[in-house]
């Protein structure tokens, strides 16, 4: 019984440690603490600087054409614009520890962004419609006054 519990504790603790593995083909730096691990998402915390982690991923994706690095205020967002099984790698900024979050490619994101952009086309043309209607009304009044 005791031995069984000991094995369980070791397994449980071991499970939170991260070695040089990968998630959906994205490598994970060794020495991190896994905080979230599902089939769609992995989150690992490191006692490293943001620059060190970023450098690791930059050198890993150096040869990849369809990988985009976006430097945002709170994180660096690495996005796959190709056909890889993962969608993004997020590296947090501005904290003592760095959190790396890798997310699986999801149809929710694709369909969400497409719907948003389709609505965006409507918005653009709607603004143009309003602009034209307003200017048309002003022009008509001015011309009517001039007549």
């Amino acid at each position: 019984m005791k031995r069984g519990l000991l094995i369980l504790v070791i397994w449980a603790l071991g499970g939170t440690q991260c070695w040089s593995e990968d998630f959906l083909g994205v490598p994970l730096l060794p020495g991190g603490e896994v905080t979230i691990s599902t089939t769609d998402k992995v989150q690992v915390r490191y006692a490293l600087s943001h620059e060190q982690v970023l450098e690791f991923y930059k050198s890993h994706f150096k040869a990849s054409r369809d990988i985009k690095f976006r430097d945002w205020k709170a994180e660096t967002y690495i996005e796959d614009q190709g056909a890889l099984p993962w969608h993004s790698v997020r590296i947090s900024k501005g904290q003592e520890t760095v959190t790396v979050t890798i997310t699986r490619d999801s149809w929710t994101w694709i369909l969400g962004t497409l719907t948003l952009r389709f609505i965006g086309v409507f918005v653009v043309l709607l603004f143009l419609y309003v602009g034209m209607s307003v200017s048309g009304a002003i022009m008509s009044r001015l011309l009517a006054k001039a007549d």
Partner: protein
Amino acid sequence: MRIDEVWDLLVGTFYTTGIWAMSWKYPVMWAIAFFFLYLAIVKKFEPLLLLPIGFGIFLVNFPLVPLMGYTEEGVPHLIQFFYHYGLEWEIIPCVIFLGLGAMTDFGPLIANPKTLLIGAGAQLGVFVTFTGTVLAGFTLKEAASVGIIGGADGPTTIYLTQHLAPQLLGPNALAAYSYMAMVPLIQPPIMRLLTTREERLIRMKQLRPVSKRERILFPLIGAGIIAILVPAVMPLMGMFMLGNLMRESGVVSRLSDTAQNALMNIVTIFLGVSVGATMHAEKFLSWKPLLIFGLGLVDFAVCTAGGILTVKVMNLFLKEKINPLIGSAGVSAVPMSARVSQMMGQRYDKKNYLLMHAMGPNLAGVIGTAAAAGMFIAMFS
């Protein structure tokens, strides 16, 4: 001279010809080139583009021809030169938009600006096809470039494809121009399917006259709004609006005339032959171009349906109903799809003149497709 020396000379001469490097792929590409030349010359389908594209395909599909590569010193070959400066630098599509702007009369759109929404609805296929293209195994960037084919706007398709997935430039451009030419075959069955007889008989009020001041103001307002909302597409739309301002201002008729005719014709030659020349057998003969043609057709159909359905939704709220047949003109094949609306309308009512009404969504489609392209560029930048 000894016999072996003569033999060496003959062999050496033989290796300077293309005969030894022939493969079965070249005749296949010649057949494809002849098919598009046939469409252009005999069927007169988009001849201004399909003829140079077809001949471009033919020219580059011979072994050893120095047209689409670089010399040992790194100097570009003839068509590579056109391609590099015209397409890689994204100049030609923008210059074509300048000419298109100078050729376009926005009067019907200004007179009835609510048709702008039809142009937006007709972009439905662009986004639906994106999903299908991703499912087919294309990358996201490739999917965006294939999706835009349904917008039925050649220069925008070329511009976006060159920006996101230059490896698909040939098949995408070819699919776009081919389907634009086939609008009269593709659209009518969809229009019949999605409209009732009563809807087809709707007569629309004659458009109001548009003053010169409004026409001059339109490119300024249009350029301003698009620049704020979709800055990524301003190289295209900026040129488009400049061309239109040159036309409507009436003070630079020489420039307007050059943009519409001489300049447009010159860049069309370079565009066509460069696009055709990207279709080398080694790159073209794969499953992707076939899929692009299949997806492009679906794209066109969904865009047509999107335009018609948008009119139907608008009619739920409007007092003066819009004939849904003009919805199909929301794809930006100008003026072909507007003509199809007119033709279909007259089939059911000889005295129903829909052409000018359909020009509104048709022009809105040009802006809508450009906006969709801008959305995609922004998505990946």
